[in-house]
């Protein structure tokens, strides 16, 4: 995936601009930056949920599996049902590796409502493995995970990279992914400016 001179914004106000990077297969890229620096906006734009203000994104679209702050779990469905649903949406059928990788064994028939926050998060991340998509775009994936689970998550990412996938993560904590490149988005902060929709009125 290649991003060139990308500008993104929220509510018409540019947040980041002039951003360029390449994410090769087998590589991971960690985005850093203080709260409100535009990491979420950038990831949403790359995932195709909102239009970019400028620049190009190549090799994204149908190759992206996106995971946001909220896990998109249905509390009345069991762990397996949740996972199987997403697998079917992405035309996959095998959910067993995902259950193993995120240690969801023994929880299979529990409704998602009865899971703890960390368990829910693990289930939300396990969803990535059943999408069979190459580029994982993850927004704060480790929120509410304990140390052991973070390690397990890092292991899953490493496995994904080894299979030729790639990952783009926004996170504040160290995942122990030593091979990952780090990109600080702070220097790309857009100049303070009124929103594009307001500009027409000045």
């Amino acid at each position, binding site marked *: 995936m290649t991003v060139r001179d990308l500008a993104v914004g929220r509510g018409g106000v540019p947040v980041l601009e002039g951003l360029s990077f390449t994410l090769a297969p087998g590589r991971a890229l960690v985005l850093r930056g203080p709260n409100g620096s535009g990491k979420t906006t950038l990831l949403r734009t790359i995932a195709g949920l909102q239009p970019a203000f400028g620049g190009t994104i190549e090799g994204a679209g149908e190759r992206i599996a996106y995971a946001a702050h909220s896990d998109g779990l249905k509390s009345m469905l069991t762990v397996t049902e949740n996972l199987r649903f997403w697998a079917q949406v992405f035309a996959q059928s095998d959910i067993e590796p995902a259950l193993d990788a995120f240690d969801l064994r023994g929880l299979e028939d529990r409704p998602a409502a009865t899971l703890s926050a960390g368990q829910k998060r693990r289930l939300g991340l396990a969803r990535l493995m059943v999408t069979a998509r190459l580029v994982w775009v993850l927004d704060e994936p480790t929120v509410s995970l304990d140390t052991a689970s973070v390690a397990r998550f890092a292991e899953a990412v490493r496995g994904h990279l080894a299979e030729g996938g790639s990952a783009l993560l926004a996170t504040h904590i160290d995942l122990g992914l030593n091979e990952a490149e780090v990109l600080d988005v702070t220097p790309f902060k857009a100049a303070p*400016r*009124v929103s594009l929709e*307001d500009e*027409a*009125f*000045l």
Partner: protein
Amino acid sequence: MSIWEYANPVKFIRTTDRILPWVSVAAVLCLVTGLVWGYFFTPDDYRQGATVKIIYLHVPAALMAINAWIMMLVASLIWIVRRHHVSALAARAAAPVGAIFTVIALATGALWGQPMWGTWWAWDPRLTSFLILFLFYLGYMALWSAIENDDTAADLTSILCLVGSVFALLSRYAVLFWNQGLHQGASLSLDKEENVADVFWYPLLVCIAGFVLLFVALVFLRTQTEIRARRTRALLARESRT
């Protein structure tokens, strides 16, 4: 020089500022002439007596109620296709005006219906259609005021206006089918046979011209207000950011 230059807010305000006084004066002149002429210098109808004179308010208001919606539809289409902010704001500005015209048409219709049909309200197809049109205006305005982001609101209301127009048209035919009414046929058609007599016709034309000019003046004025409000917000936003 293309017509789209007027889609620039500043240019729009500058141009309409120049036109607005003339349109306003012309609207008042037409309305005063038409109404005074119509109410004091035309004979009573041999069947309907003096009540016929409410036609000078009823028909133009009804006409403009529909035209205002059509204008909103056109403005919405322009917004969707070319994304000119003035267009979206003009549609927004026209909605309350159109809604009030609809209310005038309904109220005068009730006042007219009472002596003629012996009832304030009948579920006559035309009256019912206007009532439904009024509901569409309400929904449109409610959606505008419910959404915080201006561009999102413009997008959503434009699509609502498009879809609403189709359903308003459908409702019109549904209502016709549902109840054949008491209402007389078109007052203004090119077919002389069913037309109103010339003596009522000319002051009516002047009144219609007055209503059209009034609508134009009000929409210009309200669009200017909307533009200035947006401009104020934009300036405040710029100040707070720099």
